[in-house]
């Protein structure tokens, strides 16, 4: 158990170090001055330049420089945005939670809607219901996310006028950003009508969540269905049936868990797609998330921001993937057979 945890921690650390190294190398790969790419500060004169260079260790070799870079990353000194002049750590910590929030709701939707539908389709495999669900999910899965988001805006915002086009919360509500998660911030704010604010936030959330979630939901339905069909054909299901267990008993005791085990790693892969989609959709809905922020940084050629943004997003994806994999490792009893060998 401790060994497993230790191995995952080591894996996680190494991946993060590699990511940091890549982000460090970006400072040299981007056009322009290395010093400016690393800090975001343009030195006014030679003295200042020499002072910053000494601080960054620029006169020494790459490894020492990388060591200083890691040290600054850990200390929270991520440099300054060359466009806005604000500390990047602050900017990222405002933008990233917005994306995480949006992705969480979309993932929640995918799990709550997609997995039960997938189970249903898998249990009723090769029936009309199954074919309907399957073709629906293939259709949804094939939508390009930006197009789907635009259609949603067109239908629900412009034609039916049931949801706002863009933004996170109506400007009428003055909510201070404490955690970065809008729902929590609303609950923490004390001078507003909470009920109204939450309703407003939900109506803002509705379209982007559906736009991102629909595609992941469709993927979930397909993954789950396949896994359930696989499990239903295993000999132990036939054996359970021959023992006279009812379909419900078989489903709850033997199908659910066994079908879920292969889904979890695939779910981790879906997280990557989900966050990518979220970054695209944010731009369309002017959602103040990391995707929108990165896009602005690209327009303004804000290299320090790009370097840090890439590091933050990839660290997030890696963390989630490793957590899901660790969880899967902990609940799947048969996976330790590969470590110990079988009798």
């Amino acid at each position, binding site marked *: 158990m401790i060994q497993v945890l230790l191995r995952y921690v080591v894996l996680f650390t190494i991946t993060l170090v590699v990511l940091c190294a890549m982000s460090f190398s970006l400072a040299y790969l981007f056009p322009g001055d290395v010093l400016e790419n690393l800090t975001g500060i343009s030195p006014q004169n030679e003295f200042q330049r020499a002072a910053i260079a000494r601080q960054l260790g620029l006169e020494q070799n790459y490894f020492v420089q990388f060591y200083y870079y890691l040290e600054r990353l850990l200390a929270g000194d991520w440099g300054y945005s060359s466009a806005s002049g604000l500390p990047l750590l602050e900017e990222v910590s405002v933008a990233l939670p917005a994306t995480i929030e949006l992705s969480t709701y979309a993932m929640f939707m995918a799990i709550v809607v997609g997995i039960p539908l997938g189970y249903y389709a898998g249990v009723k495999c090769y029936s009309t219901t199954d074919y309907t669900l399957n073709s629906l999910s293939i259709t949804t899965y094939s939508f390009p996310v930006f197009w789907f988001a635009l259609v949603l805006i067109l239908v629900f915002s412009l034609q039916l006028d049931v949801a706002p086009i863009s933004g996170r919360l109506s400007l009428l509500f003055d909510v201070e950003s404490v955690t970065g998660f809008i729902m929590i911030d609303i609950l923490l704010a004390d001078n507003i009508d909470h009920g109204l604010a939450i309703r407003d936030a939900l109506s803002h959330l509705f379209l982007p969540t559906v736009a991102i979630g629909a595609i992941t939901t469709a993927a979930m339905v397909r993954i789950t269905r396949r896994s359930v069909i696989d499990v239903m054909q*295993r*000999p*132990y299901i*036939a*054996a*359970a*049936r*021959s*023992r*006279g*267990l*009812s379909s419900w*008993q078989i489903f709850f*005791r*033997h199908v659910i*868990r*066994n079908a879920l*085990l292969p889904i979890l790693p695939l779910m981790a892969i879906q997280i990557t797609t989900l966050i990518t989609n979220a970054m695209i959709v944010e731009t369309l809905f002017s959602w103040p998330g990391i995707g929108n922020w990165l896009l602005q940084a690209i327009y303004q050629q804000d290299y320090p921001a790009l370097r840090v943004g890439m590091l933050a997003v990839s660290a997030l994806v890696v963390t989630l993937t490793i957590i899901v994999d660790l969880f899967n490792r902990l609940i*799947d*009893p*048969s996976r330790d*057979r590969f470590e110990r060998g*079988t*009798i």
Partner: protein
Amino acid sequence: MAMLDIKNLTLEISEGDTTIKALDKVSLSVNSGEIRALVGESGSGKSLIVSAICGALPAKWKLTADRMSWNGENLLSMSTQQRREVMRRDIAVVFQNPQTSLDPSVTLGEQLEESIPEEFVKGQWFWQRAKHRKKIAISTMHKVGIKDHNTYLKSYPHQVPSDIGQKFMMAIALVAQPKLLIADDPTRGMEPTTKTQILKLLTRLNQTRALSVLFVSHDLLAIASMSHTMTVLYAGQTVESGKMKHIKKRPLHPYTKALLDSAPSFRKDLPPKSSLPTLKGSIPTLQHLPIGCRLGPRCPRAQRECVVTPSSRRIHDHIYSCHYPLHREVK
């Protein structure tokens, strides 16, 4: 009257535009309190019969029978619910491969406990019931010869040796106190000591609890010592069936004779260092089944009539299907 009575069971599998008769008019019956052996080479359809009895065949395969009844009740026309009840209370199956027939994500203890019918469990409250359930599980484990119950109740199927897995399959089958136990090659891949233990256990249960056993195997030696009656299967057709001692003494079908001759333990007159007689060729695949008597191309006594499927004939309770049985002279 026979408990399990199957007459002319035919299983048709359609593959593209052709239909294959994987089982062709198989008849099989198990009387109360007897051990019936079902013998045949690999690919002769033994496991298909087992699956047909426990209703685990895919719905697309067409299963027809003149009669397939359990204690007089028709198994084929039964509702799913009734069928399930029969499987839960009366018939238990031990499958070939314990590693794949046990759920890999559930502990062995849970799998054993879920097979205990509710009416066996005493106690008012769920903790009392859980305790009693565990007691039943442990005593069943001891019965099949697993001593270290504490370890194995908590183990997952991949953590135990395969003979323990097989014994667990037996325990799961026996815990519901069935009337008929279908053992689909339960001693496959076991070393002789464990095999003997399992066979002894089956014999003892048969004697003490009047448990009927349908023993499916190709291990003639094991079967011959314990079973009362025997049915021989070849390529999905029943070849011969009858009392074990009659068949052993005087087989009527050429295939049965070849089968018995190939086992040296049944031959007293076998000279030292002589080669064992076998039939030429091998069992045909399902795609290339011969018409008529399926043994035809390999049979030393085959004649022109053998392209017609022989009807089953009966001498007392010895049934065989052959145009030229061994007690009759070939013209």
